[in-house]
């Protein structure tokens, strides 16, 4: 990337009528047309959220870096397929990031037959480890407040699934709850979060 190209794109962004910085959607549209300068700006927007989610699921820093890199390259490669109906550019990217982190966790699990160890492990400890770190590090006050508004079972199930990267049968095993109950709690827990956070997309 040459400095000239980069400054050109910065200048163009400043020339927009409202003097607004480009939205992630604008940037992704430019990335879809092959703009490396736009990708550089998009990187600054999405790298933190992507790394945060991947790290939360994988925990290991080296692996998280590796998966974050894969996700960002996939973002570059698949940008031409993004359509606004699929949600915000950031949401699209984070959905991809979570999916890839979970893929990694599960392929590693398959290799080491981790399911067995998960079964043997104290559910208590596993849950504490995940939800403690998550709750204390939440940057969004609103998310923390909304998570607090869930029932214990809803909150435990949602955090183990999303931040822990577990399948719902694993969550059921960890919490010692029936499969059908966990499935239902994941859904009504998320619905409650949606309403609490005012997600309308």
């Amino acid at each position, binding site marked *: 990337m040459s400095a000239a190209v980069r400054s050109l794109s910065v200048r163009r962004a400043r020339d927009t009528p409202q003097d607004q910085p480009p939205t992630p959607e604008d940037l992704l549209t430019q990335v879809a047309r092959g703009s490396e300068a736009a990708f550089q700006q998009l990187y600054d927007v999405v790298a933190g959220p992507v790394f945060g*989610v991947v*790290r939360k699921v994988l925990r290991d820093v080296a692996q998280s870096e590796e998966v974050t890199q894969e996700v960002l*390259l996939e973002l570059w490669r698949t940008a031409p397929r993004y359509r606004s109906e699929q949600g*915000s550019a950031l949401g699209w990217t984070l959905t991809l990031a979570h999916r890839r982190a979970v893929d990694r966790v599960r392929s590693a699990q398959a290799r080491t037959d981790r399911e067995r160890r998960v079964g043997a492990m104290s559910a208590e400890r596993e849950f504490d480890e995940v939800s403690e770190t998550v709750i204390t590090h939440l940057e*969004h006050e609103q998310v923390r407040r909304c998570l607090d508004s869930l029932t214990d079972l809803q909150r435990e199930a949602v955090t183990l699934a999303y931040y822990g990267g577990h399948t719902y049968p694993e969550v059921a095993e960890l919490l010692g709850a029936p499969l059908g109950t966990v499935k239902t709690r994941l859904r009504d827990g998320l619905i409650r979060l949606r309403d609490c956070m005012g997600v309308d997309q």
Partner: protein
Amino acid sequence: MSLDAHTLTGAYALDAVDDVERRRFEQHLLGCPGCAQEVSELRATAVRLGLAVTEQPPARLHDRVLAEISGVRQDRPGRPVSHRARLTARRPWLGRVGAVAAAIALAGAAALGVLVARADHQLAGTRAQLAQAQPLSRVLSAPDAHTITATANDDEGTATLVVSNELDAGILTVSAMPSPPAGHAYQAWVIGPDGPHSVGLLSSTGATPPRLVHGLRDESSIAVTVEPAAGSLAPTSIPVLQLDLAS
């Protein structure tokens, strides 16, 4: 929608299902607009959980990623179509214009063939076809008309859509499909944010008259499924062919 499938929206939005269940549920989503809407809301909710744990990656990642993208080729918009990709690669001069011309010839010939074949015994149908011929030719001659092609999953059968974004209409031609199982027929669907809408049953003989499809602007794909001969209100099987409109 079955209650059981519907409760999976939460687990699905959180990626808490295995691959098999995910595929099965995505199939279910095709025919359940209510579920699809809920999934997109719950996914957006999960994204908020993700944003809450933002953490800056080590600075070295920045340079590594930016160095690497210049060597990575980007996908084509929409689903890559192997047939079209091969054609263009072999004869670059043919390009888009050639493909459009070929499709126009194909669709035109098929329309004429249908008109002639039906003239004898289906006068009413022929009138309808004639009434349709005007919009057909309008789409074919639209300055922004372009062609999207898809091959069936098992390589038997092709769908070609000549589409004009300006007219918000397209002409769908499906050809060379194997005969559907006894008592079944092919049914075409337009799939978008509101779920699938039937475009109608396709002829069971494999040669289907070109079909005018309106209102494609916000839709994402056209799919063909095998359905009971009388047709279905929503797809009940995995598409044998899917044509991505994002191209």
